[in-house]
């Protein structure tokens, strides 16, 4: 994998593209990162109560353009993707063009019919958000009574049809005590799992979700949890190949900031193209230009692509830099500067540092095996 990642990065092939098909959702999650989006003309075809959405014909054309430039991995998300009546048709078109397709959903609208279709269409994996191991906390976070029960039904249908499921649980103040139970629940359902304490600003700049981010003390505790450690190991491996962060100071300056605009890309429900789902810098719209032009020639895309770690001057002397997984998108969204310090990255790396000191102390005492190896 490392070889192909290096290759597509060098050749600027958009191997992985994330598409949000809608902003509509049947839940009202406290921490939701999907904002209102760019204003578009109302009344045009495809306009919903949540604004304009690319129609099936547009999406088909975009899929063909993506296939032509080498894209293989598609993530279809929202909003809630199953609110699109044409979702199965969209997935069918994607599979006909031989894309690997992942679906991000809250699971509440997945019944037997949808699960069977996902199996028939060979969906790579369905990611279902679950915030608690019972309805109480989950429904509090989603703002919809009965949503936990429906999500669980959805997961069970998917598993019954043999569809791979990953239970995703953002960790926030409201469900800090729940994530271990969610882990046990996911395992009992035969699902993979992922926990993420990184609650982010909405993509329209709304900072309300940050109120739910856990304290650094709690983050340190979470990072020390063995069930989180196994995921962190894979994250470290990912960091190495994605060049999200550098391990050697001497190599940092010429490193790219991240994979955004190098081999990953994002398309909004309105057809706006950004370098990454977390980097809302408008590079063009697929209704005005073809994808290839935007990817290879948009001035904004080229600007992002040409940035290097040496351009992040304010962080160059930071003692945490070798371990920092700074995300330029989060720095831009949360702190307003693509090349400035990132509050989110500082919050994370300082907790990791505490975790490291904690483990060093354990290792020195030689009483129990260290969690971090």
């Amino acid at each position: 994998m490392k070889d192909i990642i290096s290759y597509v990065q060098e050749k600027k092939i958009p191997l992985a593209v994330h598409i949000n098909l809608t902003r509509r959702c049947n839940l009202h999650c406290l921490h939701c990162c999907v904002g209102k989006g760019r204003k578009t003309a109302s009344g045009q075809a495809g306009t919903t109560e949540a604004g304009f959405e690319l129609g099936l014909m547009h999406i088909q054309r975009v899929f063909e353009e993506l296939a032509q430039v080498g894209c293989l991995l598609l993530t279809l998300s929202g909003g809630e993707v199953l609110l699109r009546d044409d979702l199965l048709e969209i997935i069918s078109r994607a599979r006909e063009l031989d894309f690997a397709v992942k679906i991000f959903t809250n699971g509440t609208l997945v019944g037997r019919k949808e699960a069977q279709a996902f199996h028939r269409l060979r969906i790579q994996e369905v990611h279902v958000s679950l915030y608690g191991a019972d309805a109480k906390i989950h429904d509090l976070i989603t703002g919809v009574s009965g949503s936990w029960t429906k999500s669980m039904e959805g997961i069970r249908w998917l598993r019954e049809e043999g569809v791979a499921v990953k239970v995703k649980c953002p960790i926030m103040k409201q469900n800090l005590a729940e994530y271990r139970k969610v882990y046990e629940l996911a395992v009992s359902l035969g699902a993979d799992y992922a926990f993420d304490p990184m609650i982010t600003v909405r993509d329209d700049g709304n900072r309300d979700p940050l109120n739910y981010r856990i304290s650094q003390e709690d983050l340190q505790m979470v990072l020390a949890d063995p069930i989180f450690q196994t995921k962190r190991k894979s994250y470290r491996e990912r960091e190495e190949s994605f060049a999200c962060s550098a391990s050697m100071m001497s190599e940092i300056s010429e490193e790219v900031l991240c994979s955004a605009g190098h081999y990953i890309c994002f398309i909004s429900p309105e057809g706006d193209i950004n370098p990454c789902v977390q980097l809302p810098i408008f590079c063009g719209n697929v209704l005005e230009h073809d994808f290839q032009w935007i990817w290879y020639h948009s001035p904004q895309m080229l600007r992002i692509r040409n940035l290097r770690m040496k351009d992040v001057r304010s962080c160059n002397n930071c003692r945490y830099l070798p371990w920092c997984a700074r995300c330029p998108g989060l720095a831009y969204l949360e702190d307003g500067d693509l090349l400035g310090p990132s509050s989110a990255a500082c919050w994370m790396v300082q907790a990791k540092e505490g975790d490291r000191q904690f483990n060093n102390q354990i290792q020195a005492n030689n009483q129990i095996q260290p969690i971090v190896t």
Partner: protein
Amino acid sequence: MLAKYIARNENTASRIIDGQAVIMTLTDNTLHTLNAVGSRIWELCTGQKTMEEIIQIIQEEYISSRPDEIRSDCEIFFKDLYSKGMVVILDEKAQGNN
């Protein structure tokens, strides 16, 4: 065995990038890459040709290589693709063009 048809498994997704096949096996989320000859064979795994026919095509297209070496390499390659769940072996020609 070589008289049987060979087709890409439905549990894969693939793209030819600069002549190199990049294949995702959807059951284990693994990306595989093939070299130029492997990619050419992958393109031919449509369920419309037997393994023997594919070997003959490769022998014709790579005339600078020894035919027996090509045959041996192809047989190993077919087994490797099959063991990784990337292809299926069919008794009859697949329907459609796939």
